[in-house]
């Protein structure tokens, strides 16, 4: 069998890291151990907003097994960190800004001793007024989370003028999406080992080794070269491993005690210890001519970023640019704000702002279709963008955009047969294992939605990825190896990279070396970017190797290191105009669902997905991304919600934060449209996020079809479906804040700039 048949691109090659995962040998961050190690534990604030009056660390230092207790006063170097702005304290100093904020850390001989010590540490607080509602945060007299006010970023997009547009029909809606958790099964965890040279070796879970190092090193007072990070096995991420969690804490404890320190979060702590998906409120107006041509769109978008910035500025930027959907609309105004509150911080989660706006614009499009008396899918086709379309930011969509084909092929997927109403196995009814039905009051609904988002980073970031490929002779034939710092947290990147090497170098044996900070940055495993960026770097290196080898036999090793950059993007100007995104991908989903109308319970019957993928490099991996992404969007539609009361998470456990089980998902029929993307390796587009962008909207569309209810809020509760709870209401769009411009406020103030400066292209 040729290499191309066994495991080259286009094949469903087996995972290169699969075997240790099925045998249980694969080592995740929470599995690591070493001799003589200490366990770390974190003390967290019970208040959403409070002044710290005293931290009584001394008694804890004398508890059994305790080796070290650290609070802010013990920090000797940089005291803050953050993905875009260093606004988050390593350990809270003077004030705490969210319930769950880290206040102190302890290290002890055993896990139990560390936990007991952390639980025993007494901190005196003076509770302060907290702002826990995103609209309240905009009020001038609201408590200020940071001294400069609660607006983190406001984005304004002006294209044409909706006031001038001649629309025959308008629809206007208000939509809410809840705070969602990534709920990766593998918890935060890692091991920090102090080194003889005064540096530190950190084995941890992350989505981006180098951005972690950039934040960790200043807090340890070490140059970056002395902070050596090796990737531990990552048990899922979906955005929750982009921000620093336990890394700085573990390193500080290790350097202070001169011993290895392991820190692992339990599930409850994990809910408090990582960022979540931004809850959102969207006020949307769409205007169209009587024959269904969209002429105007106005969106007011508000997101709750919680206490610290994380990647909120990028999330609101993204969401704002997608706010009226993948449609040609001449006159658009978008006002998008992300605010600080004393709620737990929000940041990256699969979709990065796109799912929230998709829920809104697709609901509005269905309403518009109904008002126009038009088929909802025809309305999408009438307005779908294509290559050459101009987006609300003025960006010309230069790359591939086969949205029409995506929509038509999704529509054409055969509907599933209707299952007989009576006589099913009990678990085949809505309500599953509860035995609540013998087929009563079942109503089938079909919903259709389209979505899109950017692939790769945006707004002028000069994103890059470095990879090294080596080819060496061996008795068994040439062997290739790949060195990359890129993180594969399950989506299958390493397998794709091996497939690329097999195809390009005609080599069967491909080894992946461990991912460490000893090589150049591969960037984040997020934004559906890795196949393009690191795949691109690997492809470049392979081609250079082939060029270097020419027609000669391989007699000695050849190594090439390449860095892949995508084409330049621009920031948004003062009108929100520019070329902010590199590439766009589109998706359509049709969901068939059954609703038990009396009980308001749902059984999803089928999800049909057509996705624009550029080029599918591993069909099984690609459908796996669609299926997994769909389940996460389905969760937000039906059961997932971080329930916050006065800034406190009430359901920080898998008992009450309900992610879909196998009984909650339905068969997913997936097809891909492969129209190659411009300037992308093999013409690929990233796969991972698109199904999550659209599935919430598609599921709720099916529920609206089944019940006739408005359903303008997710997750949809049984109360909504039976009519006990009425739709979410508003007193009108949130006021637009008076801010200097499009950038984040901390940037205008020159405050503790973090990665946002380091990642931008130079201005020249």
């Amino acid at each position, binding site marked *: 069998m040729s290499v191309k048949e066994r495991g080259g691109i286009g094949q469903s090659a087996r995972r290169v890291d699969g075997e240790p995962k*099925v*045998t249980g040998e694969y080592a995740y961050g929470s599995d690591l151990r070493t001799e003589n190690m200490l366990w770390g534990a974190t003390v967290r604030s019970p208040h959403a907003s409070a002044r710290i009056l005293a931290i009584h660390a001394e008694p804890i230092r004398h508890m059994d097994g305790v080796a070290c207790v650290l609070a802010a006063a013990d920090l000797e170097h940089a005291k803050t960190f953050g993905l875009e702005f260093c606004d988050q304290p390593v350990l809270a100093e003077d004030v705490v800004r969210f319930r769950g904020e880290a206040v102190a850390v302890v290290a002890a001989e055993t896990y139990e001793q560390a936990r007991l010590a952390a639980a025993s540490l007494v901190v005196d607080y003076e509770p302060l007024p907290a702002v826990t509602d995103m609209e309240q945060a905009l009020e001038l007299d609201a408590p200020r989370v940071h001294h400069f006010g609660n607006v983190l970023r406001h984005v304004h997009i002006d294209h044409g003028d909706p006031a001038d547009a001649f629309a025959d029909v308008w629809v206007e809606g208000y939509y809410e999406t809840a705070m969602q958790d990534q709920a990766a099964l593998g918890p935060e965890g890692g091991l920090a080992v102090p080194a003889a040279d005064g540096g530190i070796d950190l084995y941890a879970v992350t989505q981006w080794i180098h951005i972690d190092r950039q934040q960790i090193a200043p807090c340890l007072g070490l140059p970056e070269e002395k902070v050596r990070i090796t990737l531990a096995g990552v048990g899922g991420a979906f955005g929750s491993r982009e921000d620093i969690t336990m890394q700085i804490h573990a390193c500080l404890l290790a350097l202070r005690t001169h011993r290895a320190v392991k820190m692992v979060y339990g599930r409850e702590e994990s809910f408090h210890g990582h960022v979540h998906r931004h809850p959102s409120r969207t006020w949307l107006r769409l205007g169209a001519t009587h024959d269904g041509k969209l002429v105007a769109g106005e969106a007011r978008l508000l997101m709750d970023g919680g206490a610290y910035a994380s990647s909120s500025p990028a999330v609101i930027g993204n969401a704002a640019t997608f706010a009226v959907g993948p449609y040609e609309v001449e006159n658009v105004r978008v006002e998008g704000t992300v605010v600080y509150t004393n709620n737990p911080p929000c940041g990256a989660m699969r979709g990065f702002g796109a799912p929230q706006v998709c829920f809104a614009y697709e609901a509005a499009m269905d309403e518009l279709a109904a008002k126009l008396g038009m088929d909802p899918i025809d309305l999408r086709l009438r307005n779908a963008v294509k290559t050459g379309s101009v987006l609300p930011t003025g960006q010309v969509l230069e790359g591939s955009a086969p949205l029409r084909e995506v929509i038509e092929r999704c529509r054409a997927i055969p509907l599933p047969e209707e299952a007989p109403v009576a006589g099913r*196995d009990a678990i085949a009814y809505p309500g599953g294992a509860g035995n609540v039905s013998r087929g009563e009051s079942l109503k089938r609904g079909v919903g259709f939605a389209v979505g899109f988002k950017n692939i790769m980073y945006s707004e002028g970031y000069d994103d890059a990825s470095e990879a090294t490929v080596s080819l060496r002779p061996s008795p068994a034939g040439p062997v290739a190896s790949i060195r990359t710092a890129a993180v594969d947290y399950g989506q299958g990147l390493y397998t794709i990279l091996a497939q690329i090497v097999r195809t390009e170098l005609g080599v069967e044996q491909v080894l992946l070396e461990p991912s460490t900070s000893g090589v150049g940055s591969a960037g984040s495993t997020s934004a559906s970017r890795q196949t393009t960026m690191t795949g691109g770097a690997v492809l470049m290196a392979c081609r250079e190797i082939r060029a270097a080898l020419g027609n000669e036999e391989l007699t000695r090793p050849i190594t090439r290191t390449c860095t892949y950059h995508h084409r330049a993007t621009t920031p948004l100007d003062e009108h929100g105009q520019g070329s902010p995104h590199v590439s766009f991908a589109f998706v359509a989903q049709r969901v068939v669902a059954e609703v038990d109308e009396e009980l308001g319970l749902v059984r999803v019957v089928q999800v049909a997905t057509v996705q624009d993928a550029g080029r599918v490099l591993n069909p099984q991996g690609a459908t796996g991304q669609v*299926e*997994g992404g769909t389940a996460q969007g389905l969760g937000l539609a039906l059961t997932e919600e971080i329930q916050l009361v006065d800034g406190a998470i009430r359901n920080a456990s898998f008992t009450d934060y309900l992610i879909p089980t196998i009984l909650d998902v339905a068969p997913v029929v997936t097809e891909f449209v492969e129209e190659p993307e411009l300037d992308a390796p093999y013409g690929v587009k990233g796969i991972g996020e698109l199904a999550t962008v659209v599935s919430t909207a598609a599921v709720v569309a099916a529920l609206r079809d089944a019940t006739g209810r408005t359903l303008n809020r997710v997750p949809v509760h049984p109360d909504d479906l039976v009519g006990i709870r009425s739709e979410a209401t508003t007193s009108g769009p949130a006021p637009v804040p008076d801010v200097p411009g499009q950038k984040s406020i901390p940037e205008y103030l020159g405050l503790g700039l973090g990665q946002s400066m380091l990642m931008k292209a130079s201005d020249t």
Partner: protein
Amino acid sequence: MLIRATVNGAECALDVSPAMSLLTLLRDELELTGSKNACEQGECGSCSVWLDGELVCSCLVPAMQAHGCDVRTVESLATNGDLHPVQDAFLAAGAVQCGFCTPGLVVAAADLLARDPHPTDEAIREALAGNLCRCTGYQKIIDAVRLAEEAIA
């Protein structure tokens, strides 16, 4: 207290504290880290093992109750370097992404097929209802069970 148990076929004498879970015993004392801790409350199934032949969440079993029992974990499935048909099926079907849920699911799937070699679709889903997966959306896991069913038959 001292307990004696057979773990993956090997007899062990272990000192356990009464509140210690079987999961902690397996992971920390016996260094069998294949069984995972993702929720500590029996909601996710990633700690699934066999206790005297029954599928249980080891995070909820007090270690002392393993005294006199036969414990088998995911590490017992592959023999002499050969994967168990369920393990191979998970790989062939693409049912592994991050893999954190995989040991628990492999054990639960192997348990199902040992008890019910030709399960209905409903039986598969009911048997795996106690195992959460966040990456795959479960479709390929169902495919894997069907593949394994064929391979075992």
